[in-house]
């Protein structure tokens, strides 16, 4: 309880249609009472992408909220070994979102083939759990260094992982948008879950591919470093992606683990660490 209370997450978020598309098929949800944050990027014709991404994000938050009030709520799908209960709950929520979108797509002809990608982050006990499916991404900024926390489930990324393509070749490929996994396509989906240590001052970025197709890691890192506040960082990132072309919908959530110490306490802390 103590660590939970001590965990202070400052957040800022923005979603934008961009400069080319007519609809915004991205969705995001902020549930600070659960320390839960979700970005979804929808796909499918006739505005069904919006339906898919909203339904997915909504379902994930609802399932985690249910679990909060009902500790014996069963997990959807199989338990993953080697991760916390919270991580298993988040994976369960993403699997449920997959089922919801899949069912909705089956039941309504106009929504056939709709789907969504997702990246969700939940903070707990100095840790952050990341769950993702598809090519929405999470990054961490620590001491000015931007690190990816997710690997895309895409045609290109899979080839890079197997050493069949270099990162440079991948960045020039015309097949950036071909996914291997997404929510809603099949009755079940494999969810990738990771847990990350959270340090004071760490920034976590969740984003749709509309950001990462327009901006380099260096540009993203600079924008995150420059902003004083998380909302300012989110707005600035969206602005930069639009300036770079805004070819797709752009959604960002910027999360910062605020330092607990300030002033004299921080100096004493640093002195003890010997730096």
């Amino acid at each position, binding site marked *: 309880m103590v660590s939970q209370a001590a965990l202070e997450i400052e957040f800022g978020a923005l979603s934008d249609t961009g400069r080319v598309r007519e609809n915004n098929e991205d969705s995001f949800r902020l549930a600070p009472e659960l320390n839960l944050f979700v970005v979804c990027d929808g796909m499918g014709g006739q505005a069904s992408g919006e339906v898919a991404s909203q339904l997915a994000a909504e379902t994930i938050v609802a399932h985690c909220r249910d679990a909060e009030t009902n500790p014996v709520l069963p997990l959807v799908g199989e338990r993953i070994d*080697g991760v916390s209960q919270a991580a298993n709950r988040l994976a369960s929520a993403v699997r449920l979102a997959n089922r919801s979108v899949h069912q909705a797509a089956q039941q309504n002809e106009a929504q056939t083939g709709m789907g969504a990608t997702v990246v969700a982050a939940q903070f707990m006990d100095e840790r952050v759990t990341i769950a993702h499916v598809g090519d929405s991404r999470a990054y961490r900024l620590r001491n000015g260094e931007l*690190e990816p926390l997710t690997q895309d489930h895409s*045609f290109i990324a899979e080839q890079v992982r197997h050493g*069949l393509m270099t990162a440079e*070749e991948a960045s020039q490929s015309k*097949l950036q948008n071909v996914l*291997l996994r997404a929510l809603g396509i099949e009755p079940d989906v494999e969810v990738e879950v990771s847990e990350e240590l959270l*340090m004071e001052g760490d920034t976590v970025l969740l984003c749709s591919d509309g950001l990462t197709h327009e901006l380099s890691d260096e540009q993203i890192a600079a924008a995150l470093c420059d902003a004083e506040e998380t909302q300012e960082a989110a707005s600035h990132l969206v602005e930069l992606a639009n300036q770079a072309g805004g070819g797709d919908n752009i959604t960002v959530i910027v999360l910062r683990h605020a330092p607990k110490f300030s002033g004299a306490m921080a100096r004493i802390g640093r002195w003890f660490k010997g730096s």
Partner: protein
Amino acid sequence: MSKLVLKFENAILTEVAVGAKEVSIGRSPDNGLVIDNPAVSHYHARVFNEEGRLMLEDFGSMNGTFVNGQRVKMVSLKPGDSVVIGKHSILISDSREVSNPFPTNSGAKAAPKINETVMLDTKERREFLQKVAGAGESAQVAPSRVKVATLIVRKGKTDQHEYTLSNKLTVIGKSALATVKLKAWFAPKAAAQINRRDDNSYYIGGADKVPTINGQPVIHPTKLSPGDVIAVAGVELEFIYRE
């Protein structure tokens, strides 16, 4: 300019242009075109330009190099020729267009609109995943052996002599979360972290401290290989796999 298009069955794996400099082909990572398969020799063959012609020379490889079905030692190549090495084929191409890896029967998906996200269908996806796994088969572990990633404490004060890395996140430090518990008085709460990814590879990254691997500071999360020695916050840990 000619291009070598490496294929495994119908999947295009990579493309390499042949300019003034020759392209060596083989299993060793220092080749210009690497084919990571046991049927391929470390330095198998080379392709080079000579007097305006594109030439192929086999370096006396164990399993041979075949052009249009014939085993060859030295031949000239023309666009459209297919060079077969082991299970892989290399298509000779002189166009500069990006090749399309989609089978022709999925015409609708072959040219996605700009920025339109599409999904490979189940069958295509399964075939693709099998192909990439097959292409990297020599790098994979025999499935019958279970290997357990382990840290052995070589130096410094910790609560155990050895740790099994069974969790996706392993923290090295004094924190309640830490698996590798540091005992020294001024040890940081979280000195470093090791992440297990879904492909069962392990990556180390810094937290309160910058760890080193074999003496090299870890600036970005770095993949661990068996025998690597991690030094951080006064302890030294060797990464190995136990069977």
